């Protein structure tokens, strides 16, 4: 749609120095548009031709609305008029993100900075434009990669727990099978089991349900989903994550759980936060497992505007030489796993506006990891 008025009068051909200027502008990587007080395009460089799919010969003389999406275009005349009348600068000398429109109708983000020049022909405005799509794309790609990696670390954690989880599933399956076989056996021998069969079937159904719960819990954890935010109390999330970590965990370990009182809720991606908890608790169990009386303490408390989760083990502490690389990916000292756990956990914490800190302990003290999350401002939906 081109509802632009043709130029009131044809522009005179460029002079020699103007021609030189134009050739310089054409070599610029950024789009450059010069307009007059009536928003008519005076200069439209090569970069603009590529950016908007409009030839300079066609653009020059038209209203600059030509390269704007309709809703911007409508207001642009008002902006120019208001500036010329009041002198109040909305964009000149400031620069900001605006939208441009390609000849094919595509609307895309642009960074626009505008300068002003007084010329014998009146005021002119010089706009320098940069297509923001490549930057936005790489930002998006980075975000996608990061969420991919966060998911991968969860899958890897479940993978490492695979044998333990198989064992955990084996329990209800064993019980289920034996209940059913007991009925089958009695039946095939003509033993009268009418009085007990209902009871046995109930138990069998409970065991099947138990197996289902284990799978459900795992599936929630590994399923790939878009990041989300919910205002939640932290403690129930932590308890669920501890349960998941202890699935089939056969280290004989004492777990001391202390919950803080009147903790404010936090605004979090629940599964990602549970991912941190699973990681910290697994690490703590591993660190303590070599001790004669292995124990870990998991506590929550409020501390100035934030909620803290502390996971303390009674292991040997973290060696000073391991400390600098502790939060680096692929720098694990462990035999199993990818060494992503702490790196990812800290990234998740920081994406939530919080952090993951460590007190390395040593000299008879175990390590203590603290997850700090900002308290949610609004007391919102719970559950």
């Amino acid at each position, binding site marked *: 749609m081109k509802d632009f008025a043709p130029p009131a009068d044809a522009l005179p051909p460029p002079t020699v120095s103007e021609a030189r200027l134009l050739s310089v502008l054409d070599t610029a990587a950024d789009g450059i548009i010069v307009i007059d007080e009536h928003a008519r395009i005076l200069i439209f460089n090569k970069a603009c031709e590529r950016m908007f799919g409009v030839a300079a010969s066609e653009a020059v003389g038209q209203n600059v609305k030509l390269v704007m999406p309709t809703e911007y275009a409508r207001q642009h005349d008002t902006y120019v008029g208001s500036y010329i009348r009041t002198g109040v600068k909305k964009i000149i000398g400031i620069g900001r993100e605006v939208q441009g429109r390609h000849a094919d109708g595509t609307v895309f983000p642009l960074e626009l900075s505008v300068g002003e020049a007084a010329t014998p022909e009146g005021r002119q405005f010089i706009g320098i434009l940069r297509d923001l799509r490549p930057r936005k794309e790489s930002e998006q790609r980075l975000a996608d990669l990061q969420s991919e990696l966060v998911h991968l670390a969860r899958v890897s954690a479940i993978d490492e727990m695979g044998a333990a989880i198989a*064992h955990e599933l084996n*329990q209800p399956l*064993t*019980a289920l099978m*034996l209940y059913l076989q007991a009925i089958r056996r009695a039946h095939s021998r003509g033993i009268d089991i009418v009085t007990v069969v209902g009871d046995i079937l109930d*138990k069998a159904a409970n*065991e099947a349900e138990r197996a289902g719960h284990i799978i459900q819990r795992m599936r929630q954890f590994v399923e790939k989903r878009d990041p989300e935010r919910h205002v939640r109390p932290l403690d129930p999330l932590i308890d669920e994550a501890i349960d998941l970590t202890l699935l089939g965990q*056969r280290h004989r370990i004492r777990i001391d759980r202390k919950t803080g009182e009147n903790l404010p809720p936090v605004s979090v991606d629940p599964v990602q936060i549970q991912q941190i908890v699973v990681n910290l608790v697994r690490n703590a169990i591993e660190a303590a497992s070599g001790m004669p009386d292995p124990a870990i303490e998991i506590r929550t408390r409020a501390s100035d505007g934030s909620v803290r989760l502390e996971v303390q083990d009674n292991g040997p502490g973290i060696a000073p030489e391991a400390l600098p690389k502790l939060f680096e990916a692929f720098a694990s000292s462990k035999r199993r796993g990818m060494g992503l756990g702490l790196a990812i956990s800290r990234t998740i914490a920081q994406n939530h506006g919080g952090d993951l800190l460590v007190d390395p302990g040593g000299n008879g003290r175990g390590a203590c990891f603290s997850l700090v999350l900002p308290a949610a401002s609004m007391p919102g939906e719970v559950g």
Partner: protein
Amino acid sequence: MRVHVVEDDAGVSDSLALILRNIGHTVISHRDAESLFKGSVPEAPDAVIVDLSLPGIPGAQLVRWLLNLAAPPRVVVITGQSQGFIDHQLRGLVPDGVMRKPLDVDAIARVLPPH
């Protein structure tokens, strides 16, 4: 035959007791090795079914203790763990049977036949 079952998982323990009684055995259930020690010492011709992954005293340690008794009972290990874990736990121990979970009644009846 009197069969002791040392298994901490309530569902497994209950269903195992049911099937063993079904086969014709007398069953005494314990949730860990410690509670087995509190009762009378099992001896031949009793049998003891031991889950390898017990809370507290490990299953393998209980198996060793039972096999070293003067009149050792039949000892049957049950486990849901991997073969690697089993081999590692049972180094040098030869119980009368090792059954991997999920268990089935035929396997149980073979190792602990009804009389």
